[in-house]
């Protein structure tokens, strides 16, 4: 019988990530891809199309205009899919809390699976978050 756990187990062996990064979010998270922290040793791969992705990483402050594009990306991803919000600006607007053009609650726009706080989050925090997904799948009931 195909259970949710079986399906998820296959996916979390290798989480393919599509990045939606604005502004400093991009430059701060790029070291995760590089050789020092190297996300590929955990099976995390940055892909070039949302149709191949399992997870959507959102970083940097978001505007209503960029959020529309993020929603389009999210719609194109195959299920099951996860959204990770990286950093304070993404989650709450951060230091731009009183700006007229930043998104204040990202959960109004997308179902966020995990919030990773930090400005920016450390690469270790991102790996920890993805590890939590793996643990979550392990703990799913096999039925």
């Amino acid at each position: 019988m195909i259970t949710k756990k079986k399906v998820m187990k296959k996916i979390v062996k290798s989480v393919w990530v599509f990045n939606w990064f604005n502004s400093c979010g991009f430059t701060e998270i790029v070291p995760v891809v590089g050789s020092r922290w190297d996300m590929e040793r955990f099976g995390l791969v940055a892909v070039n199309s949302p149709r191949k992705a399992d997870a959507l990483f959102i970083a940097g402050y978001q505007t209503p205009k960029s959020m529309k594009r993020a929603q389009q990306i999210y719609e194109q991803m195959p299920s099951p899919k996860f959204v990770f919000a990286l950093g304070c600006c993404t989650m709450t607007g951060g230091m731009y809390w009183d700006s007229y053009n930043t998104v204040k609650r990202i959960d109004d726009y997308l179902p966020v699976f995990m919030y990773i706080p930090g400005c920016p989050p450390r690469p270790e925090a991102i790996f920890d978050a993805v590890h939590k997904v793996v643990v979550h799948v392990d703990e799913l009931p096999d039925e």
Partner: protein
Amino acid sequence: MMSEKSRQNKKQSIEEKLIEDLNSILDATVNYQTERRLWVNIEPDLIVETCTKAYELGFEHLSTISVTDWLDKGKLEVTYHLWSYTHNHLLTIKTKIDRKKPKISSLNSIWGGNAETCERECHELFGVDFKGNPNLTPLFLEDWEGPPPFLKDFDWREYVKKEMYDQKNPREKVYFEVRK
């Protein structure tokens, strides 16, 4: 070999000649601001005419269009920065328009899409109506319903508190305690 002093003198005389030419052609007073920067104040009706003349004189590159809000004077100051590759000078054309009915002619007859994009930005941020620009759609502020945000009488902190935050939400309560 030309000495440093004579070189400077030559440079100065070229600059003086350029200012004279501009004075006679643009029919306005050009001020020497700093090195290689010239300012000119004109009436808003003359903007297309002046820019056409400046273009023909070699000021071919429209760097940017910016707007300043003079709240106490009731004016919006539209500033055009033109760069010349032949003279290596920056000509800044300034004109003041009424703040309540901000209207000015578009420059897309001279600079096409370049002017169009700059004008779109000024339109969405300051509400300046550029007559003759066929595409004044929002550039960054999609779905924006508030007033033009860069005007000085728009208090965006108050606007954000009213429109985007909920005082009953325990996470967002803290934003209402921030003083001005």
